[in-house]
């Protein structure tokens, strides 16, 4: 096997750029360490996805935002930016559907190949996906016929198994129709840097800090304080209750 990712990044640094009007980011620099989950919040159109895209492509002042992304305090080498075999970033985007006209198995094998991994991992991805969704995914299915939930489960499992990278970017997991905490736990794995765009109170409060976006700019960073951590416990309880209600209704039973 390849020794692809020997260089486990210890820190990810975002250096500020400009907002949509060309004003400098109020947050000039933020450093994220291994094992940290960090949130990105803000209204629609505030630049959350743009920030995620900056991180995904390791922007070096060459994207419209002018931001720079450093790994261990240094500019990443060119190969790290483009070659999937050397990529340090796995991304779960907002896209809920596949457009590729291929079977699930063929696609996963091809993806494993593009990342320099064993094509045999395809089976593992499918098995994992099927623990996240109620409707089983079959290796022979065409990707384009998968439901939103199946696609999402497959994308999550693919990231956990094939794109297994030290930095994980997640854009809006709550729209998923899958078990979101389980998905986040899977994606976060051990000692990874997780950046998650979210409006979901539970996911946002799971993060130790959150970057607040407005008009394309990073306006401030909020650290989750003790009060918020207490609120998180309540939210977690409430979410568990809602999940069980949802399951009851889905199963065609009467809510007691």
């Amino acid at each position, binding site marked *: 096997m390849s020794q692809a990712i020997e260089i486990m990044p210890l820190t990810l640094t975002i250096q500020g750029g400009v907002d949509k009007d060309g004003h400098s980011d109020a947050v000039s620099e933020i450093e994220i360490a291994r094992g940290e989950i960090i949130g990105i919040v803000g209204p629609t159109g505030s630049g959350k996805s743009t920030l995620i895209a900056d991180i995904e492509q390791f922007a070096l002042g060459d*994207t*419209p935002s002018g931001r720079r992304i450093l790994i261990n305090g240094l500019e990443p080498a060119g190969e790290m930016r483009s070659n999937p075999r050397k990529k340090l970033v796995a991304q779960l*985007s907002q896209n809920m559907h596949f*457009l590729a*006209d*291929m079977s699930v198995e063929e*696609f996963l094998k*091809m*993806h494993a190949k593009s990342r320099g991994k064993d094509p045999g991992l395809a089976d593992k991805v499918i098995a994992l996906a099927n623990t996240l969704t109620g409707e089983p995914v079959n290796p022979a299915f065409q990707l384009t016929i998968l439901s939103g939930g199946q696609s999402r489960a497959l*994308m999550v499992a693919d990231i956990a198994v094939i794109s297994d990278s030290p930095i994980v970017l997640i854009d809006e997991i709550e729209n998923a129709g899958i078990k979101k905490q389980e998905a986040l736990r899977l994606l976060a794995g051990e000692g990874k840097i997780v950046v998650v765009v979210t409006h979901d109170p539970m996911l946002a409060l799971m993060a130790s800090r959150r970057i607040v976006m407005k008009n394309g700019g990073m306006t401030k960073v909020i650290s989750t304080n003790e009060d918020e951590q207490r609120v998180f416990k309540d939210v977690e309880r409430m979410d568990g209750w809602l999940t069980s209600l949802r399951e009851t209704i889905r199963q065609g039973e009467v809510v007691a």
Partner: protein
Amino acid sequence: MKMVVVAGTPGSGKTSVLMHAVKDLLRSGRSPALVKIDCMWTEDDARFRRLQVPVAVGLAKDMCPDHYAIYNFDEMLQWAEAQQADMLLNETAGLCLRCAPYPDKALAICVIDVTTGPNSPLKVGPLLTTADAAVMTKGDLVSQAEREVFRERILEANPGCRIIEANGLSGKGSAELAQLMASWPDISGEMVLRHNPPLAICTLCTGELRISKEHHRGVLRHLDGFMEYTGE
């Protein structure tokens, strides 16, 4: 003088990607001049003109647009020279995929839309296989996994090519593309095409409208693959 030929299927984002790259080129002090080739009609020149660069349009009309571009490369270069440009950017019409209008010494760029699916790099033919760089567009509409599979497919079709992920809306990738254009060697001496144009010398090329086989002469290929010459 540098020369860049930007080819790709209609709607793949050639113009948008090129617009962003031109802005980056201007910012770095280059003087590009642009020639847009199209078939019947285009308004892309109006978009380019907003960038305050010299723009010319060539409409191929009855001639194959790629053949038309190739036939007129000399004239385009002379025109660019007269505009005091240091770089000729030629955007092709992008049609049948059979021709690759790439001179050997120009930078050949194939723009390819990720949403057309991972089989499309295999269908594009010489337009992709003889290009120096492939620019993947609309990647924001698919998952990262799908982009990576698409990338792998491009490399299967053209193992040596440089791949740039670009976005015609946000401008992502344009800086990398502009840098590649600016670093390409100047053209010099006689240029030849990288790939031979297709055999297309039949009565249809000269305006025959009737459909039945008896009306056609020239180098013709049957559905079963048999190719023959019929005529005098």
